[in-house]
């Protein structure tokens, strides 16, 4: 008689489906398929997709590449800790280290140009949260993720860490500059 009792008759599979249910199932199925195909569609026609490029890495190997970039392209330093601000050429590989509780170095990019951004962590998990754009990428120690980014507008941005990474998590924030040529 009800949902807390066994179905009234032995065979319930053959009960005809009500019109309300039938129409709703059809609508819901169509919507489900639309949502599903939006994702591959965006891979082909959209401009915001993650590459599937990633490598296994070590803190030493990654630091060496970041250091080489810093040595070559530093334009100034900021804060008492003298964190280098690097301005790598458009189209190049840029390396951003995350560690307790700092992003290193500070990047200065050109609007409208693309860069291959490499991200890893030296210790715990961190997460790259670009504000106020609100773009968020997980950063995992031992793995180097690569994504090509194309800043749209010039301005001063911030990189917040939004993966809990211990007691200083809420102090892990850095700047990122986008300039016009």
């Amino acid at each position, binding site marked *: 008689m009800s949902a807390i009792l066994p179905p009234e008759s*032995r*065979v*319930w*599979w*053959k009960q005809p489906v009500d019109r309300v249910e039938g129409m709703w199932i059809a609508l819901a199925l169509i919507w489900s398929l639309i949502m599903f195909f939006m994702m591959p569609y965006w891979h082909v026609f959209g401009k915001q997709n993650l590459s599937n490029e*990633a*490598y*296994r*890495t070590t803190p030493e*190997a*990654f630091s060496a590449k970041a250091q080489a970039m810093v040595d070559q392209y530093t334009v100034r330093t900021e804060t008492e800790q003298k964190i280098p601000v690097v301005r790598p050429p458009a189209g190049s590989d840029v390396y951003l280290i995350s560690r307790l509780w700092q992003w290193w170095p500070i990047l200065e990019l050109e609007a409208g140009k693309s860069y291959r951004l490499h991200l890893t962590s030296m210790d715990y998990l961190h997460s790259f949260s670009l504000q106020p754009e609100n773009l968020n990428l997980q950063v995992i120690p031992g*793995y*180097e993720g690569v994504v090509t980014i194309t800043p749209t507008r010039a301005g001063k941005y911030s990189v917040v860490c939004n993966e809990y990474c211990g007691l200083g998590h809420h102090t892990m924030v850095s700047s990122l500059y986008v300039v016009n040529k």
Partner: protein
Amino acid sequence: MSNTNEATPPERIPVMQHILDNPFLLLFLGVAMPTVFYIVWGVMEIVTIPVAK
């Protein structure tokens, strides 16, 4: 099952109803699906990530 005093022989149970009435078959399906598609496939992707140059 008590087929009381029905004159006709009991109606055959449709296949889908049989499946839905079998908790251990469902348990198998419910464990196998995510194990294969989520865990096994996912772990395979992770172990095949190449080493950085």
